[in-house]
């Protein structure tokens, strides 16, 4: 159900692009995801009492270059959910603030191209006391997540491929009920959230002017349980999803530092999650805080080309 959140955060903390020192890139993103079919455990079904569940997200994001090799990132979305059928009420609110440190320790010639290695650490935590236990209409799962990511990028000419693997440690959450059933009864309001992993491959064309790439993403919950027949989803379900998407980033020539991004994805396989299709778009702008006026600043300038 929460795939779109994963997709959104995928924009800057999963690409092999660094902000130049003292540059700050910030922007707004919009993401709309919809699903009618979902996986109840491994069984694919629809639900006439939900119809199509849609999630709209508006996010503010930013990326600051502490140095050419070290970036700090943040993002915070406002999320809104709705079901087209049945009587259930949609929810909305500010969701989780995520902060990332992105580090590019290695960049070296390798064969015909350039090989870069990245290490990222991220934390995200809820900014409000939003409701987690009203799936599929909750706006998030309300856990505090710690992500550790390794990423490798290889570029030959203007063609590149990036692979990353992430381990996500998730905190327990508290729900409004003081007892709940998973595969057994729990007499507490605390829910143990299984950790998760995320593997992503992206490949495509990358120049100083634009990026066009295809993305395959897999999110796997390391534990958790399946929704039983005709039951409601629960935050500690085993939510898995494999998605395929495209992403395009274009730097506007006329305005230095201004970029537009857009993309979309579909869900190829899943478990305890909606088969969401999503589209997104955004606008980003780079502010240059470096003392020396740098005329060459461009968004999404691949490190390799510097």
């Amino acid at each position, binding site marked *: 159900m929460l795939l779109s959140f994963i997709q959104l955060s995928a924009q800057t903390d999963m690409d092999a692009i660094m902000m130049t020192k003292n540059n700050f890139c910030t922007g707004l993103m919009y993401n709309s995801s919809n699903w009618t079919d979902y996986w109840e455990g491994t069984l694919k079904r629809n639900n*006439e009492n939900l119809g199509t569940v849609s999630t709209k997200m508006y996010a503010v994001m930013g990326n600051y270059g502490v140095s050419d090799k070290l970036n700090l990132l943040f993002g915070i979305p406002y999320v809104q959910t709705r079901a087209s*059928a049945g*009587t259930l009420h949609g929810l909305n609110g500010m969701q989780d603030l995520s902060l990332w440190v992105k580090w590019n320790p290695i960049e070296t010639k390798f064969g015909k191209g350039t090989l870069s290695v990245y290490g990222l650490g991220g*934390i995200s935590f809820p900014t409000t006391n939003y409701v987690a236990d009203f799936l599929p209409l909750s706006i998030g799962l309300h856990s505090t997540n710690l992500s*550790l990511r390794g990423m490798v990028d290889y570029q030959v000419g203007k063609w590149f491929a990036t692979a990353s693997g992430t381990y996500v440690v998730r905190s327990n959450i508290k729900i*409004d009920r003081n007892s709940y059933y998973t595969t057994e009864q729990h*007499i*507490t309001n605390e829910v143990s959230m299984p950790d998760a992993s995320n593997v992503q491959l992206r490949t495509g064309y990358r120049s100083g002017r634009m990026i066009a790439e295809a993305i395959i993403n897999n999110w796997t919950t390391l534990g958790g349980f399946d929704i039983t*027949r005709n039951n409601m989803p629960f935050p500690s379900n085993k939510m898995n999803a494999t998605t395929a998407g495209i992403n395009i980033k274009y730097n506007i020539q006329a305005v230095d530092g201004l970029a537009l991004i857009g993309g979309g994805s579909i869900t190829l396989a899943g478990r305890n999650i909606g088969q969401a299709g999503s589209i997104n778009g955004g606008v980003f702008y780079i502010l240059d805080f470096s003392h020396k006026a740098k005329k060459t600043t461009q968004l999404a300038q691949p490190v390799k080309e510097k």
Partner: protein
Amino acid sequence: MKKIFLSTLIIIVVIIAAQLSCSKVTSGRTDYLPALNPSKTDIDAGSWKTVFLTGPTEFSVAAPVAVTTPAYIAELNEIKALQKNITKEQEEKIAYWGAGGVLRWNELMRELVAKYNLPPYQKADGVYPAPSAANPFAYPLFPFANPPYAARAYAYISAAQYDALVAAWHYKKLYNRAAPYKTDVAIQAKLQPTDLPSYPSESAVLAGVTAEMMKLLFPGEIAYIQQKLEEQELTSIMAGANTRGDVEAGEALGRLVAQKITARARTDKAGAAIGTPADWAQIENAVTAKGEIAWISLDNPKRPPMLPLFGKVKPCLFDEATTVALRPLPPPSTTSEQLKKETAEILDFVTHPTRERIRIVHFWADGVGTYAPPGHWNAIAAEDFITKNFSEVRWARNMALVNMALMDAAIVCWDTKNFYSNPRPTQMNPAIKTLTGIPNFQAYISGHSTFSGAAASILGYIIPERATAYQAMALEASLSRMYGGIHYRSDCEVGLTTGQKVGSYAIARAKTDGAD
């Protein structure tokens, strides 16, 4: 500078990661409790008024062999052997069951209700299949432990446990066999030592009566329950509280009591509560004939009403005529200004939901996949009883009073619902979107309110110092249904008072059952 920054960051990350991963395990509020330590043995409980048994001696329990016989000495030797090789895991099981058999079986019951509280999915033609007691493993699993089903199940189990323990206490006093650790000093009392005679074993009575009742109520769980029975019985032997003979006599007595109550349950008309299409049409027509708008299912596809004839089930605390007498006056007419006003009030609640109201809605929702509202009140009762140092028989008596009130509340409530067949707010105004699942039955009167009114009343009698708190909880549970957008104010207010009336029958029984 950059290095300091980076290393600080790494340290922070490691600290947070360590905290997140260490706190993974959640423990329940009743996982680790001290051993039950009754403030009194209630040695005369054999004289307390039974519910379904004619009296404590309806089923006889043979006199135990003398403690000096080789047969009994062999039983003591079994305990010694078990205690010699006890494992950590066995010690944990002893502690688990030692906190109280009535408590643990009640928790297990709640777990089963939650597991089975799932509405069947429709077949390809849009028709909903009904669970079959004859084939509990086929989809849809039997039972669909919805609120009325659950209320009845909790009540029969609790009343059966109570009756069986009253009988057990009668024979305990009669035969007066001391606990193994009193007869043989080499046997350790791993739980609280007591002067209560050990024959027949109260743990085994509970295990036997519950396991036997479960054959009727949760036939798909017989194997699971049998495993729990064996676990409870073995721990009571390992704890030095009972010998094999105490346990065998206890289980046999429990099963006999359950068989009698099962026969009562089989003829209480719950089996026919699902009704027929003709019954469903009749309920609707009776209302439309009066010029009122009748309830229609808001499920897609439309689902037949949930156990519409449950109002005809034979109650525990009064007779069927009383069910009808307790039926409240009609709700506001569906064409009245009053209902229009009440519908507008609910629309306003759901249009401006506050986080606190949503918390209240979800705290009390007890919908699909939960132990249902009667289970919630069982949880409230159990967690308070833990603090009261009741004997097992008093635990059972109090749980029986609460659960008989809840079952009869379900009966009166379902009778009312299907007599007036009043639509939900969302049926009157589809703009009303709900903050919890909309139940598939009529609005008037609110089930949560009726359950809560009944449970809060009897609990307030049992634990007077908490009476005000129980009433406040009942009111919050009742209001939660308005905040959630699924009930009008009339449903909730009349539900509460009707529940309180049902509760007064439980109080009347409590005053005269010999326990107070």
